[in-house]
């Protein structure tokens, strides 16, 4: 360690100390470059005010702000890196830990002084701890419980379904309507067409969304539904089937219908459901088929629900049986 540049108390450092020289080989030139960069920055900021003033586009604003900051930044960095004393300088580290005596004293303050109090007033401490715990609990009750409703098993007395994961607003006889509220007629869809439908009065509702697919052209007198899974042959009507549009994986709308393969694809995590076989998942992370909505057609050609879902729609949860 050089004796030329002492810390406290020693003689002052002199300018011939190489540690105080700038790192730049040619400081004059570097100073000029730094100055130039900062002036570019200055021009950038000034220009920013101008382009804002004349209401130029965001591009101009960003460009001028960027030029301003980069110019100023580069100039200041050049100043610090190349023109200030190059060092290297050193600083000693000191141990973090205290001496053994200090540790003992600290320890004694806690365990000795504190321990004495515990020994003498154990009852008070116990009551304090219990009360503090109860206080925390008391504060948590409104802090947590006020946040929202408890999940309910079924719809409430006024028929609201929004507090239950099990129910939807689909009831037997509910009209199938589009998101705009237009009732869906049996000849509205071409073969291969799909439509997102809702029970009338609940247009746009998340849990109620259903994807209506026309798989085949079947007249009213044709056998009802040739391609449903066993036991559900009556759930479709005249070549139509309807499934919950909520993916059983993470609840995204299963929005992509591939007519050729008759598959529904979820764009979020690529679960694929086979529409021909009760929307069973063929591929991907979805664990369960999309619940099917039984549908029918009334005498006027209006499509209606012929019941509600036989299970909870959407992703799985603990209480789901």
């Amino acid at each position, binding site marked *: 360690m050089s004796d030329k*540049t002492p*810390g*406290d108390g020693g003689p*002052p*450092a*002199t*300018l*011939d100390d190489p*540690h*105080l020289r*700038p790192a730049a080989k040619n400081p004059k030139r570097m100073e000029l470059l730094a100055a130039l960069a900062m002036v570019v920055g200055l021009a950038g900021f000034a220009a920013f005010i101008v382009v804002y003033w004349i209401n130029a586009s965001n591009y101009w*604003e*960003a*460009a001028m*702000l*960027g030029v301003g*900051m*980069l110019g*100023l*930044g580069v100039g*200041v*960095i050049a100043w*610090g*890196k190349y023109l*200030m*004393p190059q*060092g*290297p*300088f*050193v*600083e*000693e580290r000191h141990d973090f830990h205290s001496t053994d005596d200090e540790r003992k004293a600290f320890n004694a303050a806690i365990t000795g002084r504190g321990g004495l109090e515990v020994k003498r007033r154990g009852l008070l401490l116990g009551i304090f701890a219990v009360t503090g715990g109860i206080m925390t609990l008391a504060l948590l009750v409104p802090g947590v*419980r006020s946040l*929202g409703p*408890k*999940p309910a098993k079924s719809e409430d007395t006024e028929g609201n*379904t*929004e507090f239950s*994961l099990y129910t939807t607003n689909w009831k037997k006889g509910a009209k199938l309507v589009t*998101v705009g509220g237009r009732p869906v007629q049996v000849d509205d869809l071409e073969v291969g067409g799909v439509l997102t439908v*809702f029970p009338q009065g609940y247009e*746009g509702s*998340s849990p109620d*969304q259903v994807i209506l697919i026309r798989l085949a052209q079947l007249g009213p007198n044709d056998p009802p539904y040739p391609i449903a899974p066993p036991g559900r042959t009556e759930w479709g009507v005249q070549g139509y089937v309807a499934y919950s549009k909520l993916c059983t994986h*993470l*609840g*995204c*709308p299963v929005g992509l219908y591939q007519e050729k393969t008759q598959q529904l694809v979820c*764009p*979020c995590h*690529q679960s694929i459901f086979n529409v021909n076989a009760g929307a069973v998942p063929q591929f*991907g992370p979805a*664990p369960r088929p999309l619940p099917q909505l039984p549908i029918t057609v009334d005498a006027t050609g209006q499509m209606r629900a012929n019941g509600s879902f036989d299970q909870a729609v*959407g*992703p*799985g*949860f*603990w*209480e*789901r049986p």
Partner: protein
Amino acid sequence: MIDKSLNWLDDRLGVAKGGRTFLDKIFPDHWSFMLGEIALYSFVVLLGTGVFLTLYFVPSAHEVVYHGSYVPLRGQKVSEAYGSTVGLSFDVRSGLLMRQAHHWAADIFLGSIAVHMARVFFTGAFRKPREFNWIVGVLMLILGIVNGFLGYSLPDDLVSGTGIRIAYSIMESIPVVGSYIAFFLFGGNYPGSGIIIPRFFVLHVLIVPAILVGLLAAHLGLLVKQKHTQFPGKGKTEENVVGSPMFPTFIAKTTGFLFVSAGVIFLLGGFAQINPIWQFGQYEPYQISYAVQPDWYMGWLDGAARIMPAWEWVGWGHTIPLEVFLPAVVFPGLIFTILLAWPFIEQAKTKDLRYHNLLDRPRDRPKRTAAGAAMLTLLFGVFFASSTDVMANFFQLPLMDVLWFFRFFVPLAPFVAYYLTFKICNEMREADGIGTRKRALIVERTTEGEYLTTESPVRPGDEHLELDPVPVPTFIDTTDPELATAAGVRRVIR
């Protein structure tokens, strides 16, 4: 003048002694020590642009008719959140710049944290006495990811709305309490009572940033208290720090770097479009668009959810959606637990309880480096798995094949990465003179037929004149006019 005001301050606060020590504080120089600064300065930009955005954003799901200047949306019903975000993008001057700069700053914030963390990990900077600061850093990473997701969700556009839906389903997947958590947070079955955007807003602009600022203060405070680590080198020991003093050198460099970081973020914010919500449209729970991707720092969770097999557990009247719970709750929980515990895991393994202020070269700690490489491989694996559909389209492969590839790649590749990294590290350690330029051996044959080899001289560029480090001078004699004007010497007045 300065004397006087410093004395005034010192009379009241006693700043002279501590202040001088602070100004003399040494910061070691290495490019990799700037990574954390990028995170710090993008956080500064986040706070600034974020305050600007709060002045115009309306955190409400209430439906209004849009009347702003974006023509395709006029007359349509939008939520106030979506409408005001479009509004602050198009009708507030500089609004789009601020909004996009905010988004870019968030992506860069988390990116630089990740890289900074990798630097700290691979060089062993987390070892005693810095375990606390590692933990504080991991907590900031977690909160940063959370706040990024919250902010991304606020505009109520089609892409972010889908993200909220997925978040709801992930909460639902937690056994026993899942549906309660989701119901309490959202105020009911999805999409809830319209309360989620105001709640996310207060979390995003107040609660999480307040915690982040607190942790940041702790992070920097610990850094100052414990002093920075340094790479081995001339004059550098476990008992000292060699580098530039806080004032004026480090302050100048770091302030300049603040401006450069902010400048880059604003340039990105102006020229690189990000999250064009007016193209996505208002979120409707029954709509979805193709190739929905979250921000990059959420990609690893999305990828994990994609490659997970459909293993729902059903029994005793209950359902555990393991296909969601494992990749979206357990997996990140495990990763963050390993990260938080790493300093102690390593300590338990090495039984090394000494202080470490000198950094390791990664190859000198083959096991740690290999473990880190395995972790990165795992995370990159699930990250890329989050774009299976895009890859399938791009490479014209069946989606199923891409998915099966990742189902094998993600669990297996980390082991391969571990083995290869371990081997490479060991070979690098055995190789002599690695990292320095090779010098030619000159073979000479003397007239007697004797062969002599000599090493060629060092190339001019390879030789650095390094001075011995000295303490920062307190007083500098600036009186010698002759020396002060000598070539290469500048007057330094302190």
